[in-house]
C-alpha cells in the first residue's frame, strides 16, 4: 500500500458545534487511523526525531508497536521516558520538536508523532487498567518536590521509579499546575490530567495539596523534616499587566485569573460556585497560546464577539499555528498590529471600551522579531465589556522571598548550574519556568528528567 504524503487528519468537532461547550475539540485517532499514520514512519536508524524530544522518547520504537497493533506496548514504550503522554500528545508543540526533525517532513508532511502519542496514551487509559512499571526497591532517601506542575510531576515519577520516597507539595487544591489552572478543558480534558496524576501517585508519590512552600513550610524546614534534596518547580505564575489607564476597572482580568476561574474553579459550570463575568464582547490582549485559550474560553461563555488584540502581525505570534487556526475557525476577530493604550470607563466603574492604536513593524528587536511602533494619530476604540490581559507572566516571589539564600537573576528567576539544575543553595534544585521564564510543558518536563538523573547520581555516590 502506498504511503500518503499527508498526515492522517485527526477528526475534530466542527467550529459551530464546539464553541457551544467545553468538550475537547480534536477527537483522537481510531485504531485504523493510528496504524495508517504509524505506517508512514520510515523507522530511520538515526532517529532524528528523538533528538527533538526534550524527554527523549524512543519514537520509532513506539510507532512500530502501533504498526504491530500492540497499542498497550506503545504506551508503555512512551512511558519509559514520559509519564504524562496523554498530556504531551495534546499540548506539546511537536511542529517545533520531534516532527520538525522527521525525515518525511523534508518533502511531505512529517509523521504525526503527537497524534500517535495521544492515541497510545488514550488507548491505554481507555482500557481502564494502567500497568504500573516495576519500581526499584526503596532506597530510604526522601525528596521533596515543590509544585505539582509538569516538571514536578515528571521528576517525582522518575525518582519514584528509582526507589526514592517522594512528596510533592502543591499550593493549590489540585495537582497539575498550569495543566489544571491554565490550559482549558477543550484543549486538555481534566480527566486526562487526573488520570496521569493518578499514575504518578501509583508510582508511590505522595501529593500534598494546599501546602504553600514559603508559607506553610520553608525550604529549610523541609530539610529539617528529613528530605535529602528539594526540587523547585513552581512555574512562572505572576500575571503581567500593561500599566495603562483603566486597567483596574471592573471587567479587566489577567489571563491567569480568567483561566483559573474557568479551568481550575470550573466557573463555566452551573454546579460550581466560583463566578466569572459573562459578557457580550471581550477583548483579549496578547498573541500567545494563553491569549488563544482565553479568547476561546470567552466564546464558550457565550460571548457574541471576541477580539484578539495583538501588537505585531500574525507571523510574530508566539501561539502555535494550530491554536491560531482553531481560534480563527471559531470566529475570533483578530485585530493585528494593534495595541491598547487605555481602557475606558462606563461611568460606573466598569469597562466600556478599549482605546487602541495601530502599529507598524520597524527594525528587529532583541527577540529577533520586528519591533512594533505606534502609528501617530491612529487611535480608535473597540467597544467591549471585558478585557483580558494575556501578555505574559513573571516569576512568583512567594517561595524565593522566603528563601533568600537561593540566588535569583534580575527578573526574579532562579539561577541554576545549566547542566545540573543546582541552585546556589545546597541540595536544592530547580527547573521549568521558574528557571527559564514562561516556556512549554515539555521543556519543563525535559529539565526535570535531566535533574532527576543528577539528583540520583549525587545521592547514590
Amino acid at each position, binding site marked *: 500500500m502506498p504511503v500518503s504524503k499527508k498526515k492522517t487528519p485527526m477528526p475534530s468537532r466542527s467550529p459551530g458545534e464546539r464553541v457551544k461547550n467545553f468538550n475537547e475539540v480534536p477527537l483522537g485517532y481510531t485504531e485504523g487511523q493510528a496504524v495508517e499514520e504509524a505506517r508512514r514512519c520510515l523507522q530511520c536508524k538515526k532517529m532524528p526525531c528523538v533528538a527533538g524530544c526534550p524527554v527523549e522518547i524512543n519514537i520509532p520504537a513506539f510507532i512500530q508497536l502501533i504498526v504491530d497493533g500492540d497499542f498497550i506496548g506503545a504506551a508503555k514504550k512512551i512511558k519509559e521516558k514520559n509519564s504524562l503522554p496523554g498530556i504531551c500528545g495534546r499540548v506539546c508543540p511537536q511542529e517545533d520538536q520531534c516532527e520538525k526533525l522527521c525525515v518525511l517532513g523534508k518533502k511531505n508532511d512529517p509523521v504525526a508523532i503527537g497524534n500517535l502519542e495521544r492515541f497510545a496514551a488514550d488507548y491505554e487509559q481507555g482500557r481502564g487498567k494502567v500497568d504500573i512499571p516495576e519500581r526499584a526497591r526503596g532506597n530510604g532517601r526522601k525528596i521533596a518536590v515543590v509544585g505539582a506542575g509538569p516538571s514536578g510531576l515528571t521528576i517525582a515519577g522518575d525518582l519514584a521509579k528509582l526507589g526514592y520516597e517522594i512528596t510533592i507539595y502543591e*499550593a*493549590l*487544591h489540585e495537582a497539575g499546575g498550569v495543566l489544571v*489552572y491554565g490550559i482549558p478543558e477543550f484543549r486538555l480534558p481534566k480527566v486526562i490530567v487526573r488520570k496521569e496524576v493518578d499514575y504518578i501517585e501509583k508510582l508511590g508519590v505522595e501529593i500534598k*495539596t*494546599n*501546602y*504553600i512552600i514559603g*508559607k*506553610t*513550610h520553608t525550604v529549610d524546614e523541609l530539610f529539617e523534616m528529613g528530605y535529602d534534596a528539594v526540587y523547585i518547580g513552581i512555574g512562572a*505564575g*505572576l*500575571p503581567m*499587566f500593561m*500599566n495603562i489607564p483603566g*486597567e*483596574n*476597572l*471592573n*471587567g479587566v482580568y*489577567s489571563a*491567569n*485569573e480568567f483561566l*483559573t*476561574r474557568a479551568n481550575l*474553579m*470550573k466557573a463555566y459550570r452551573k*454546579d*460550581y*460556585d*466560583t*463566578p*466569572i*463575568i459573562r459578557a457580550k464582547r471581550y477583548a483579549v490582549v496578547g498573541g500567545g497560546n494563553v491569549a488563544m485559550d482565553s479568547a476561546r474560553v470567552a466564546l464558550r461563555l457565550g460571548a457574541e464577539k471576541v477580539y484578539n488584540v495583538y501588537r505585531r502581525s500574525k507571523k510574530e505570534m508566539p501561539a502555535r499555528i494550530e491554536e491560531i487556526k482553531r481560534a480563527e475557525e471559531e470566529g475570533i476577530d483578530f485585530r493585528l498590529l494593534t495595541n491598547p493604550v487605555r481602557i475606558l470607563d462606563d461611568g460606573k*466603574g466598569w469597562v466600556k471600551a478599549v482605546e487602541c492604536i495601530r502599529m507598524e513593524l520597524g527594525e528587529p528587536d532583541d527577540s529577533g522579531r520586528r519591533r512594533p511602533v505606534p502609528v501617530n494619530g491612529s487611535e480608535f476604540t473597540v467597544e467591549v465589556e471585558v478585557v483580558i490581559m494575556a501578555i505574559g507572566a513573571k516569576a*512568583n*516571589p*512567594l517561595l524565593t522571598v522566603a528563601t533568600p539564600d537561593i540566588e535569583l537573576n534580575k527578573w526574579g528567576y532562579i539561577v541554576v548550574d545549566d547542566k545540573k539544575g543546582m541552585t546556589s543553595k545546597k541540595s536544592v534544585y530547580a527547573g521549568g519556568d521558574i528557571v527559564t521564564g514562561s516556556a512549554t510543558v515539555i521543556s519543563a518536563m525535559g529539565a526535570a528528567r535531566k535533574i532527576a538523573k543528577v539528583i540520583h547520581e549525587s545521592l547514590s555516590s
Partner: protein
Amino acid sequence: MYKILNKETLAPDEKMYVLDAPDIAGKTLPGQFIIIRIDENGERIPLTIADYDRKKGTITIIVQEVGKSTIQLGNMKKGDSIFDVAGPLGVPTHIEKYGTVICVGGGVGIACIYPIASAMKQAGNKVICILGARTRELIFWEDKIKAVSDEVYITTDDGSYGRKGFVSGRLKELIDEKEKIDRVMVIGPVIMMKVVSEVTRPYKIKTIVSLNSIMVDGTGMCGSCRVEIGDEIKFACVDGPDFDAHQVNYDLLMNRQKVYAREEKEACNKCKQEGNVNACK
C-alpha cells in the same frame, strides 16, 4: 479535610469555627489569612485567622454570612470537615514596640483585630481598642479583647451598647484626649477604614489597614486582589493584606469588591429556589 473542632455563634450572622490545622497553626502570625474551599464545587474563600493555638494545632476563623458560600459554611456543624484549607497567607502584621497603639475593629473586623491587639500588647505597647458595630448583638469577644488591652471602647450605630456613633468619632476624641498615639491599626468594612484613615491623616499618625479584596488563589497568581497604594499597584494577597492607610485608593477597592454583585445575587436566588435553609437573607 480539615475538621471543625468547635463552632460558636457570636452574633446572628457571625459564626466562629475552630479548625484542626496543625501545620497552618504552627506558622501563623497575626494579620495572616487562609483560603478555604467548603466542598469540591466550592469557591476559594479568603478568611482572616482570628486566633491560633500552636500547641493544640488549631486556627480560629470568623465567618460573616453574606452570600451563598458563607451561608453554606454557616450551616456546617462541629465535627463536619472543610474540604480545603491553605495558609497561612499574606505578610504578617509588623509588630514592634511603638508606644501607644489604637486598634480599631469594625463588625467582623473585631475578630481580625484581636490577634494584632494581643501581639501589640505582648510587644510592650499600651493597647487601646475601639470596637464598633451596628448594634449591641453584633459586638463579640469583648472580654477576650479586654484581656489583651489597656483600654477598650465600644460604639454602636444605634446606641444600644457603648457610645452611640461610629468608631471614627471615638477615635478622634481619643486622639485629642491622649498625649500621644504612635500607631493606629484598623480592620473593618472598607468605608470604615476609609473614614478612619481620614481621621488620622491630619494628625500624621501612621495608620495600617488590612484589605479584604476579592481573591482566587491567594498566592499572587491571579491579580484579582490588585489594589492601588500610592501610585503603585499591589496584590493584597502577597504584598498585603496590611497597607499604609493613607496611601490606599479606597474608592477603587470598593468598586472592585462589587465585581460579582450580580452573580452573587443570582447564586442566592438559586439557593432560595432550591429551598436551602437560611439561604441568603
